[in-house]
């Protein structure tokens, strides 16, 4: 399937490792020019080198800082003469119980995942509106849809990301800018190494499902890969997905429990 992505410019935040780096590689393979952004200069340089293409450039920026986001977008536009696709991927999973996570930690997490994406949208929306086209894809961990005692901070922040995506989509769709999310869970990556699973293995599960370790291994019976997530992102970024707006694709092996 030709995705007609050749010559498009894509920015991926949190692009120097894990899912972000694989998204960058896939978009590059599909013919995009790719800007990856990360906080750590040496990690970023290593990632750019690993992609080994003149179509890829690295940009150091902390998404939590509005001024840095503004400069980032200016620099990407200067380097690539425009920006067609933004993949908001920066941020991590914040495990822990309510008594282990301070409100300061929660706010920092919120800044990366919600206000970071907010500032990105504020900076790129005017450019995309001018062109009458654009894609804005947010990676939202499945804690947004799957509550968990030990991931209360992620659950709160990720739910806010969902509200952001749907509302932003309503605002920008009339201008041809399509906003969507991809919701991964149970993906093999450095982030999920040693991830502790608690009572979610049992809550809401039948005895059958408890015994077959559904909560841990998802209905499909195995974990996914960053490639699985990247495929959904690349599809949503493409011309093949022009009527998909304000929604999300679960890439979770059937993990989340809503029938809608």
């Amino acid at each position: 399937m030709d995705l007609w992505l050749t010559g498009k410019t894509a920015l991926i935040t949190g692009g120097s490792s894990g899912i972000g780096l694989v998204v960058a590689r896939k978009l590059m393979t599909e013919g995009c020019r790719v800007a990856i952004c990360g906080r750590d200069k040496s990690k970023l340089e290593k990632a750019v080198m690993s992609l080994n293409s003149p179509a890829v450039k690295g940009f150091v920026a902390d998404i939590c800082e509005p001024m840095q986001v503004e400069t980032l977008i200016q620099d990407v536009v200067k380097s690539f003469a425009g920006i067609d696709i933004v993949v908001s991927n920066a941020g991590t999973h914040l495990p822990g119980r309510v008594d282990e996570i301070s409100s300061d930690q929660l706010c920092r997490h919120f800044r990366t995942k919600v206000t970071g994406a907010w500032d990105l949208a504020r900076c790129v929306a005017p450019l995309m509106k001018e062109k009458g086209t654009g894609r804005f894809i947010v990676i939202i961990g499945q804690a947004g849809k799957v509550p968990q005692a030990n991931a209360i901070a992620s659950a709160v922040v990720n739910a806010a990301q969902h509200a952001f995506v749907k509302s932003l989509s309503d605002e920008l769709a009339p201008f041809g800018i399509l906003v969507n999310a991809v919701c991964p869970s149970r993906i093999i990556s450095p982030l999920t190494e040693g991830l502790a699973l608690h009572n979610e293995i049992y809550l809401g599960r039948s005895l059958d499902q408890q015994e077959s370790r559904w909560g841990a291994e998802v209905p499909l019976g195995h974990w996914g890969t960053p490639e699985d997530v990247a495929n959904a992102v690349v599809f949503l970024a493409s011309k093949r997905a022009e009527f998909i707006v304000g929604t999300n694709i679960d890439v979770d092996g059937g993990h989340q429990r809503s029938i809608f």
Partner: protein
Amino acid sequence: MDLNLKGKVALVTGGSRGIGRAVAQCLLEEGCNVAICSRGLTQLEATVAELSNKGRIIGVATDVTKESEAHRFVERALKDFGRVDILINNAGTHVRATVESTTVQILEQQLRDKVFGFFTMIKAVLPTMQRQRDGRIINIVGQAARHPHPDRFPSGVTNAALMAMTKSVGDAVARDNIRVNAVCPQYIESELLASLIEREMRQRGVDRAAAAAGFTRANPLGRTGQPSEVADLVAFLVSDCANFVAASSVSIDGGYQRYVFG
């Protein structure tokens, strides 16, 4: 993006027109062998003739609500193509009526066409897919599932049941490496939409532009969708590129649906 669909065998119910036909065409273009079915033979034969230059396609006149006919359709595909990798449950239509105007017969018919029809086809392909330890099933479920407005009571009830079925069956067969997902379209340009627009014109005494605006205004993108756009999403979801997408649904509606998490 290589979807790796070459040589796969796909069954598309309601494949002679609209979304079903577009899905059949897209899967043919991706290299699948395709078997389509519909109740009426004339339109079915015409579609098979029109698409036959794109790849191997057969048509089998089938009423999917009848178990024996559904099994005959699957057996014919197995005989001609040797396996069944993909099922697209698409047959059936959208039924608008209020609670007052919906009779038990109308509701029963809609449940029979969609819930029983989809279920019968799933039951018919499952043994083959389980033997292969590989299968991909897509249920096409209109957004009346998420938005059961008062004037679309039969479709609202039926489609919500189909969403429950997608999750239940998806959960049950995931360990057999069978991925069941729903694709949820709204306001796709087809004969169905044309008839809905004409109905609005008739009932409300408005012109075509005003009736059509009622549909395009309902999504933030401000336009209707094309059957080929639904087909592209279906092709992605049944491909190896979506190997970790299971027991879920994807909306394709220009932003119509109002759920934050949906």
